């Protein structure tokens, strides 16, 4: 993707979001003035929001502001949307990153083993583990996980990012509490935050694992059936070397693409997890904003998520171009 096409895509993304926001029969004015508002109060806010102007004019104003780094203020809580995003995005980033980490650490080896021992019991188990992951309704799994590991066993922390006692204890540098507490050297907070993140991250990690392991398996199968592997084997190279030094080496780029995609999916797809775990992340932020027609917040959130998605795509495209000989 070129810079131009990214710009066009982003503009289109904004425009579609904008249109959706405007045609949606959820009334942003009602969100602000509430149920009891009289007609005059209502009209005052209506005009103040510029809703009386033509759609294209409104859109133009919005783009103009965004180009000047101003995402506007949230209609609902009167704060700059940029501040809100700075607050909620690190929460999601932290959760998704740990989730992807689980996915990679467990999913890649699982996929490799499944491919090497194709058709064996371990391959079948890997297949079932992954397909079960694809098939599980996450809200159900999340509630059950909370019940068992938090409610009954008490092994993990409850909903939220840290225990209430530790809220705002470490200074916010990155917005990611695990990292902030390391920077601050506050290990109590780190432990507490870790105990809170482990369960939702494991859940997301399971989904990531399912995807990563299936993909790893098929990439590996393709490599293992290639001629050069047979050659290497004939030459008497050890099986381990064949698998890791040759086959695995060749799927690295593809794998990174898959991981990037999985990462993007977790970043945008953790809405339900965030709701169940009271996780103040960008998914629930956008959803709440959308349901109350807080369009500035929805637009801001969508821009950020969309941009990340596009950047991750460009990143994996670049990797392909640089490392994959077949892609010229």
């Amino acid at each position: 993707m070129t810079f131009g096409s990214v710009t066009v895509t982003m503009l289109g993304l904004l425009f579609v979001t904008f249109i959706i926001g405007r045609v949606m029969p959820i009334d942003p004015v009602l969100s602000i003035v509430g149920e009891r508002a009289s007609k005059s109060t209502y009209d005052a806010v209506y005009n103040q929001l510029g809703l009386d102007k033509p759609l294209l004019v409104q859109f133009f104003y919005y783009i103009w502001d965004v180009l000047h780094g101003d995402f506007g203020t949230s209609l609902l809580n009167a704060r700059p949307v940029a501040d809100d995003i700075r607050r909620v995005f690190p929460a999601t980033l932290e959760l998704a990153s740990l989730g992807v980490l689980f996915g990679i650490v467990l999913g890649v080896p699982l996929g490799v083993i499944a491919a090497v021992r194709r058709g064996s019991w371990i391959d079948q188990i890997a297949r079932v583990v992954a397909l079960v992951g694809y098939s599980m309704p996450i809200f159900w799994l999340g509630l059950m996980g909370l019940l068992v590991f938090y409610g009954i066993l008490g092994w993990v922390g409850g909903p939220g990012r840290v225990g209430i006692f530790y809220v705002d204890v470490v200074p916010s540098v990155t917005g990611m509490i695990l990292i902030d507490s390391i920077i601050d050297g506050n290990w109590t907070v780190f432990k507490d935050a870790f105990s809170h993140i482990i369960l939702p991250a494991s859940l997301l990690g399971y989904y990531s694992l399912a995807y990563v392991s299936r993909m790893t398996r098929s990439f590996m199968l393709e490599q293992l059936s290639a001629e050069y592997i047979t050659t290497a084997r004939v030459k008497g190279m050890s099986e381990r070397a064949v698998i890791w030094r040759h086959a695995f080496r060749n799927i690295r780029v593809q794998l990174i693409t898959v991981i990037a995609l999985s990462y993007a999916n977790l970043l945008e797809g953790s809405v339900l997890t965030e709701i169940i775990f009271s996780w103040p992340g960008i998914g629930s932020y956008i959803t709440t904003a959308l349901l109350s027609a807080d369009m500035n917040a929805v637009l801001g959130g969508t821009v950020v998520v969309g941009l990340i998605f596009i950047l991750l795509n460009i990143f994996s495209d670049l990797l392909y171009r640089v490392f994959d000989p077949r892609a010229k």
Partner: protein
Amino acid sequence: MNALNRLMTTAALGLAVAVTSVPSWAETPANMLVIANRIDDITTLDPAESFEFAGSDVSRNVYGKLVNFDPLNMGAGYQPDLAESWTVSEDGKSITFTMREGVKFHSGNPVTAQDAEYSLRRAVILNKTPAFILTQFGFTPENVEQTIKADGNTLTITTDKRYATSFVLNCLTATIGGIVDMKTVMANEADGDMGNTWLKTNTAGSGAYTVQSWKPNDSVTMVSNPDFYLGAPAMERVIVRHVQESATQRLLLERGDIDVARNLNPEDIAGARSVAGVAIDDELRGRLMYISLNQNHPELSKPQVRQAIKYLVDYEGMQNSFLNGQYTIHQNFLPQTYLGAVNENPFTLNIDKAKELLAEAGVSGLEIEVGVREAQERIEIAQSLQNTFAQAGITLNITVGTAKQILARYRARDLDVYMGAWGPDYPDPQTNAGTFAYNPDNSVEAQATGLLAWRNAWDTGGLTEKVDAAVVEGDREVRAQMYHDIQAEFRETAPFAILFQKIEQTGRSENVKNLTLGGAITAVSYWPVTK
């Protein structure tokens, strides 16, 4: 493969160790109150603008008012707060408040009559949604200079006609009556907004607490005001955390990670009740659950059909099953504990009677749409209605939408039937009488979208005048009787079927004492709480 096996074993072990080594503490610190609640309705902290439940909960603990309720003795009615005493003029139109001496704002500025004057004028001039609570007395941005006036240590407010004094004072206990720190607010004014933008996210009051941080959809943290004029509160920090799910709130409560859970459903209340260390409080609140029938609908406007619908609700069945303990049958528009409230609930499920009435009206094969917002208990009420309506041959189609979506259609008179809740705005009977039974101009052009009677295109059949008469009646007993009469007529003829009144059930840790949610008349108070 050995390397791999080792890697996976290490990873699994690492996880297990990390997870099990986490300490778990059994209770919150002794000087801190931690509450789980749904606070996603807070849109502003400005008392001139704040109008939703969770916002009132914050405001009540931050802003002092001229008159206020004693949380430990709600039945006593309004009491002196920042105003030490008051007198009413001969003609009953002017009330003069004498301010309490020596009370300070959180900033250290003294609370003066000028602050009170500024706060009330400000609310009228800004004219945000709750402004009607004050402007119904004839205050306008143009006349506030004369009608709301400070003089030395006193503040005089003058209404456009004589109202029951209790009505005026009750209105001043609402959130909009909060007294803000004029100097601090004006220092943060921008573009002539009277500090509205700043006060949306900051506080400048004289109450028991100040807001340290408000993270939308996440938490509100309050710290105590050690100089609070009634004495420093025992809870030095109060944290209200947004927790959406009842099950999650219950787990947090049972694990001792929170002190109070405010949104437990009947099943979780029953479950939590049996847990050691957890106590359940029941408190009657002002919120009513009702259905209303659009009078523009040719069939629904027939008196027999309105009657029939009231016989087609399984009041008992719902109260004793999925609403168990959280709603009580109530068929009148004034909530129990209000002046003039009556406790007559004549309607019960009676399919035959309803069929008779429908036949009398010549109605058959009626198909209507009910709008319900996305909240599980309301959807269940709607489904129960659907079930009983069907037994009398009425097809009820349920449309579920977000709160704003359904509300917008309701306000536009676009629904056949609306099923929802109504909470009183201030602790005076006028708050509900003035919306359920009051509609001076039923025309489309009037756009009186704030009035429930207007939304249902109901001209109130003469009740409007009776409501007008009741609101200026000075004698308490006579006034109460007038509301009894209005409600008796309303119950039989109105296109509203009031169904239930809310009982809020709170799960709390046993050691938390003196937490009152505000009953039917006000919001929660944290300052008397001990543990």
